[in-house]
């Protein structure tokens, strides 16, 4: 593909002040899904195409096509130029080649065990067995298991010498069971909606590991069917890593996106309570809070070497000892905002332009063991695995629900609680962080579904976190 893109580039008449980039994106996915022992999905999918970006008079125009023929790409380039020229008449900001660095290199996911060693029949046998394993009694109404593998190949060349290629291998395993007993209906999954998502291969679908997860889903589901409602009170809240993932995503990741702060997302995803002048000044959370943008974690879901405009990606502190230091903003947003950012201008596919996104946003481990954390709480609620999420368009007033909870009484985990929810305000919530778990409590998760942008884009992100404890949080149960 590199040679074809370079050949097209060489045939274009590009003015000295202009710039052209071609980004090839091919995504092959394989989804296998079983419900109650029967196949429900057996799908392969290929999406591929090229987006041509042309910068003229300080404006980028784009044209995207699935037709990879040279004539098609040349035509697309000219259309991109036309769009750039049209945009220049009423432009928001004048960009330059500084926003499209001439990066060269390659990146590939680390795959320990190739997925091709198993056949379709093997995979379905595994998924059927997992659904059967979750149906441990007649109280389980339905059990569902899904495995998705995605191979992503990108190749990027530009008129100022950029050339990089990235190959990703992505695995997601989702399991869920629904149960009913005495009029109570409950749902339990392996870590919440598709959170078991990683870069890698067969090492993430080891039968023993997945069997353990299926057993835990079934065990917890039965506990939930006999559980009390989560009480309504203001108390200590302890969040497991698979719920911290959502908490980080919604109330740290999104509010720190510079394009939201600059106003681009006000018509769709929303704005932010964070202001540009807050960087370097705002005490975002307690001094225990350390948050990094880290695209270099080997198996985390959103690791990469370059973003989709060629900026080399590296680990950066967004929040250090609770102080806000850096935004989630690309070279374009950094130029507009005048604040430091990261390499995060990413596109969901070949047919969408890159915008400011999260990648891996992680809370760094602290020093408190899980046992010590629980022992230090007289009364509170421990929650696992997200099932409901809602937050305002400035990323402040939130309400989240979890699948599973336990009461904490006198320093011990006691009764299981169903329908646990909590609500709060971001600007106050992170200041209530009173304990951060040590590295032994760290969990690494991800999601394929982060939506944003106009036109809309759903992109993959990763979140790692230790168990964390918060003081004085409003928790409550389900409707009566």
């Amino acid at each position: 593909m590199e040679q074809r893109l370079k050949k097209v580039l060489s045939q274009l008449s590009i003015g000295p002040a202009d710039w052209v980039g071609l980004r090839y994106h091919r995504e092959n996915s394989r989804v296998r899904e079983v419900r109650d022992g029967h196949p429900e999905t057996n799908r392969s999918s290929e999406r591929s195409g090229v987006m041509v970006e042309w910068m003229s008079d300080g404006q980028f125009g784009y044209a995207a096509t699935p037709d990879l023929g040279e004539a098609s790409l040349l035509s697309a380039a000219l259309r991109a130029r036309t769009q750039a020229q049209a945009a220049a008449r009423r432009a928001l900001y004048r960009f330059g080649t500084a926003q499209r660095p001439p990066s060269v290199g390659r990146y590939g996911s680390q795959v320990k065990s190739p997925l091709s060693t198993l056949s379709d029949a093997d995979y379905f046998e595994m998924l059927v067995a997992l659904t059967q394993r979750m149906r441990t009694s007649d109280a389980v109404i339905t059990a569902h298991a899904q495995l998705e593998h995605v191979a992503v190949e990108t190749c990027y060349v530009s008129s100022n010498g950029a050339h990089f290629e990235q190959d990703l291998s992505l695995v997601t395993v989702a399991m869920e069971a629904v149960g009913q007993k005495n009029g109570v209906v409950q749902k339990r999954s392996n870590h919440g909606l598709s959170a078991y998502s990683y870069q890698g291969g067969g090492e993430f679908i080891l039968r023993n590991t997945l069997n353990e997860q299926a057993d835990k889903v079934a065990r917890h589901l039965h506990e939930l069917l006999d559980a009390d409602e989560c009480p309504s009170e203001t108390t200590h809240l302890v969040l497991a890593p698979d719920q911290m993932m959502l908490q980080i995503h919604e109330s740290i990741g999104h509010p720190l996106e510079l394009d939201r702060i600059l106003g681009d997302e006000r018509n769709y995803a929303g704005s932010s309570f964070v202001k540009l002048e807050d960087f370097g000044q705002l005490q975002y959370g307690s001094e225990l809070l350390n948050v990094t943008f880290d695209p270099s974690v080997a198996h985390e879901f959103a690791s990469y070497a370059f973003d989709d405009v060629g900026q080399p990606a590296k680990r950066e502190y967004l929040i250090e000892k609770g102080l806000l230091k850096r935004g989630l903003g690309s070279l374009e947003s950094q130029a507009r905002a005048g604040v430091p950012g990261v390499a995060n201008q990413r596109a969901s596919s070949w047919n969408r332009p890159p915008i400011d996104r999260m990648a891996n946003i992680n809370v760094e481990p602290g020093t408190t063991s899980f046992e010590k954390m629980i022992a230090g709480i007289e009364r509170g609620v421990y929650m696992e695995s997200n099932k409901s999420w809602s937050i305002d368009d400035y990323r402040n007033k939130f309400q989240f629900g979890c699948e599973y909870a336990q009461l904490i009484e006198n320093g011990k985990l006691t009764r299981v609680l169903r329908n646990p929810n909590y609500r709060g305000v971001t600007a106050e919530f992170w200041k209530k962080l009173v304990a951060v778990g040590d590295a032994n409590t760290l969990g690494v998760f991800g999601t394929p579904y982060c939506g944003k942008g106009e036109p809309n884009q759903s992109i993959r992100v990763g979140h790692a976190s230790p168990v964390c404890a918060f003081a004085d949080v409003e928790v409550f149960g389900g409707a009566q």
Partner: protein
Amino acid sequence: MNHPTNHGVAGPMNGFSEELLSENFSNFFEGFFAGLAKGEHARVSLAAENTHFLRMSRGAVRQNGVVQDAQLQIQFLTDAGSTTEITLPFVCSGDALKALVAGTLDTARRQMTGVPADPYANKPSTRSTSRVAHAGKILAPEEAVDALLGQQKPGDDLVGIYAGGKTISALADSAGMQHWFSSDSFFVDYSLWLKNGRAIKSSYAGRQWQQADYLESLNQARANLELMSREPRVLKPGNYRVFLAPSATSELLGMFSWGALAEGSIQRNESPFCALRRGEKSFSSKFSLNENFALGFAPRFSDDGELAPECISLFENGRFVQALVSARTQKEFGVPSNGVGSERLRTPDMATGDLPLSEAFKALGTGLYLSDLHYLNWSDAIQGRVTGMTRYGCLWVENGVPVGPIVDMRFDETLFRCFGSELADVTCEAHVIPETTTYVRRALGGARVPGMLVNNFQFTL
């Protein structure tokens, strides 16, 4: 794979011709069906678009581009119950197309090897044909920037997106079903902002771009902004009487598609509407809802090869008539399918009531006028309890007079109260809410909904 270039007419992007796509699509499915062995069946669907996306921020161009896309989806089934599905780009013709047919057949057969049978898969069985082509007048990409942003007034802070062009959805199956739906259409989904961070959300959509209509939409939004310049009211959590404007009603109705109205979910006891089915809960006699394809927003056929009737009555004067039932659910649970495919609302049409929209403030008296809602999710799915936020032009109203904007509030309320016990009135006018979703591709569809007056609506934060 060889990718010969298509030759097409000018549109948002050259090389996109409906005629050529139609011809290539026919050649593909005819070749594919001809290659099927005895006991093999298939459905082939096409989703294509040629769209100009113009993203705007602060009254200027943020991103400007065109996207041409065409994707084939092939469902392959056997008498033995094996199934598989293949999605791939569709850009070829001639000999390359013949090679694509052969390659796809091989892939389908290979992907089914050793896979257990799917007992709920539905083989193609009915013959039906249709061809709908909605021609329109769409802005040329070169003209769009000036048309959209050229008439701004000083201080206008417009944010949003224009999407315009042709979308195509087509389906054929080996039993003889053949459907084609194409539409030239556009939408401008936008908001106007004041420096105090308050905004009015609006949209202009259709098939025939009329500059005067767009400017009228902008002027109406500007006029509505006036109230938003006032000091926002901070409200305490609690129960308030509210008027839900059509766009807010549409957001609440959207939760019906989160498993609630799906017969499969009801059968698995995962839906809040199980309580309606059992007669334990009820909706107000003022509430009626249809899935109405006669509105013309979406094709009656689905990718799953089902053909829905023109109109499906879901709720009639509060009575739960039927859920959305796919052929798959029919096979699994024995409930007759109503041909909807995905068991999600694609073109909901909520019945109007007696309240003139112009009297909404007066009828509300003292309470909250909710123009828009944001980020809805279940807070207790089984109980039909929904949480979400107020957004954009929501107002505090006293004695029938709008006072000013509110500081946005979080609500937590059940569908059974909103559409049931607390539903006081429904407006006699309904608004069309265009489908503006563009994940992967421009979605087809839209809703026609009135406003609702609700006696008690619970705010929690």
